[in-house]
């Protein structure tokens, strides 16, 4: 359902937001698993997370994060 608010714009319900792509789902699961992996610092996982949210990954950027 959509509701018209007093400013004339529509309020979008969660169910009407665009579903994730298959790649986004795969990254979500990957990052969740990595957060539970003690070999990975949370900071590194968060950096990877911010990269994958923006665009396709660039291997060199990921290498730099993993080198830290």
């Amino acid at each position: 359902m959509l509701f018209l608010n007093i400013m004339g714009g529509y309020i979008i319900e969660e169910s009407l937001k665009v579903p994730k792509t298959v790649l986004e789902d795969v990254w979500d699961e990957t990052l969740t698993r990595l957060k539970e992996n003690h070999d990975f610092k949370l900071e590194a996982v968060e950096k990877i997370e911010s990269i994958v949210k923006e665009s396709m990954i660039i291997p060199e950027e990921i290498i730099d994060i993993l080198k830290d």
Partner: protein
Amino acid sequence: MKLLELEILNFRGIRNLTIDPQGKNFLIYGPNGSGKSAVVDALDFLLTGQISRMTGKGTKDIKLKEHGPHIDYSPKDSCISAKVQIHGIEEPIRIKRTLESPKKLICDDSIREIIKPVLELASRGQHVLTRREILNYVTADSSTRGKQIQTLLKITDVEITRSKLLKVKNTLKSIYESTNSSLNTISTSINVNIGINNFNEEKILDFINSNRRILDGNPLKELSSDLLKEGIEPRSISSENRVNTQLLKNDLDKLQSINSEDNKANIREIDLELRELNAKISSDHRLVDAHEHLKLTRLGLNLLDPDGGCPLCDTPWKTDELHEHLKNKIELLSDAAKDLDKMISLSDDLILEVNNVTAILNEIIKSADIIGLNEESEVLKVWLNNLKIFLSVLEGENYPDPKFSVHMVEVLLSPLNYPYILNNIYSNAIESSPEPSKEQTAWDNLTRLEENLKTYEMSVKECSKSFKSYKKGEILYNTFVESKNSILNNLYLEIKDRFVELYRQLHLDDEMNFDAEIVSEGAGVNFKVDFHGRCVNPPNALHSEGHQDSMGICLYLALAERLTQGFIDLIILDDVMMSVDAPHRREICNLLANFFKGRQFFITTHDQTWARQLQTEGVIQSKNRIEFSNWTIENGPSVNILGDIWEVIEDDLARNDIPSAAAKLRRGSEEYFSQVCSSLHAPVRFSFSGQYELGDLLGGAMSEYKSQLKHAKAAAQSWGNYEELEKLKKIEDFSKDVFTRLNMERWAVNPALHYNQWADFTSQDFKPVVETFRDLFSIFQCSKCGTLIHLVINGPQPEAVKCNCGNINWNLKDK
């Protein structure tokens, strides 16, 4: 989202086109090159701001602003606008995009946020299936089918990401291997300096403690460069120009021992054996091939993607299958392996010799520099440099190198003229530096080791760090692959049942028990299908191209339905029908009409039969079908709007344009009754040209109708179904009346009738003709679902006459 109206202005091959689907299925029929795909491009552009066909591989020089507008117009004159219906909003909304500002969707600000998810989903392209994708899927061989399925399902970005993460892992592995090699080099230097063969912490500590003891230091229990001089002091005043002649003598002695005849003979033997092996292999191309294969196979095994994919060409393999395959290949090459391993061992021996000389030379050069023997230092540096070049040749793939003959190697490792230079350095050192005390030598030993140990410790840290990075790269890659398999398998599981259901529906006659397996495996998809309950194989193993075609369509439809649910109801099928035969196309129509309620199909095709079937099977209403023809650069396609025939004829009558109404009635009737004859399998006199007169078609259709109605009555009688018999009699009475009227009126649509003769007719004269044909059409069509009646044949005899919804269902089988 459903499409209500679409207007295209000066875009690609179209000058000006307005269509009016009103949220219903829509068909554009026309020959190749008539501009059908330009309409699909326009929809694509409207929703995404780009034209998919103009992006990607092979489209480098194609620019949206340059090649998007009609060739005679500029981007500012080129725009697409539409009226669409969005879920959750009652009022339709208008959206527009121009080629001048392709990134900006022009719409009311209040709906901008609402349409955002629709546009985002559209950018994934999952609502469009093109002929090219189906073609690639059907023609793919077993090694690329997995990738083509991913392309068909528009999930190639997952595979691209996996491949990039594999690159991350392998790069980090190379970095680790390089740091490990540096660690080995510095370890060799330490070994040479303290006179041991293998790096051993205990022996190094013994060496340190024996020197510390001389300096009254406590023994160390831990090997650390920071602790090496802890608690001890230098025993003489340090001088910048002082050389420890004792240590220099030790270095020269070590070099001399390398230069000994025994060692020279040993090095010569190693080098000759290495060369002989190389010569043996080089002289026989089969051995060269075997070695090259072995090296590549070993490398492949080392770099093997744990998920099974080939690291060289990314071809997906079953998990562990490539590993086994490579291991088997290596076993087959066992003779070559013996030679190769021997060569590696001999080469390592030579590398060790070079590293030993290098380590000693470094120390001697330092001494020469301290006492200011620049000329000697430079000569030694040239030697050192040559050794480094030789080392790189040995570590590379090109040994023996013409630059390094047997004699040259001997000279390089034990040069003839260097004793003079070395003696000169030593004698100058003796002159310039006092003879060191035992304590001074101990201190200098520790100083030299301290420096090496610092480098060693740094290398250990680097190596450990790079190993951790490599392992993290491996974990990241493996985790991604596991997640990918888990997510894709869930998705495949969800769509598999729907895929099987749709495919069975298409092939009810021959594959009612069809089943399939879709599993994410390696870099691709393991897609196998059942073949008549006999075996399970990849789709291209036993199924015909037509069957594979319909599999591709069903797979796509099942996935598109799952991924666009609730946002884009519009599914675009751009000329996708190819090798599917006519009966199965009918089933595809049935599928689109009955299995995708609430979806709007936008279909283009160059295939007339398919276009007709879409209409007769009720997928497309006649007013939602247009025909493109006679495309020209200046004007684009000619558009024949094949709307509701009765509406357009009424319009003509209202204008008293009888000739036009008669022509439309004749043409529409020809079209309609060719479909009726096809549906009823009616006998029509064969025409080689494929052109049939209305008289031939009407005769065939009416005679078949009467014949099947007679059979239906007889069958109802035999079953004692009097209610059905009464119903059929009423149908018969009505049809008899229509056929009688038709015989009286059909002259009016005779093509031989001269144009001038219409001058005497009025609308009132022609109206009964139209009424008769309208009733005639209704006889062959279900009043409920609008589809044509068709003959159901199962076995030698027809079984029934039915419409798609079952409202008309005449049993033809007697008791």
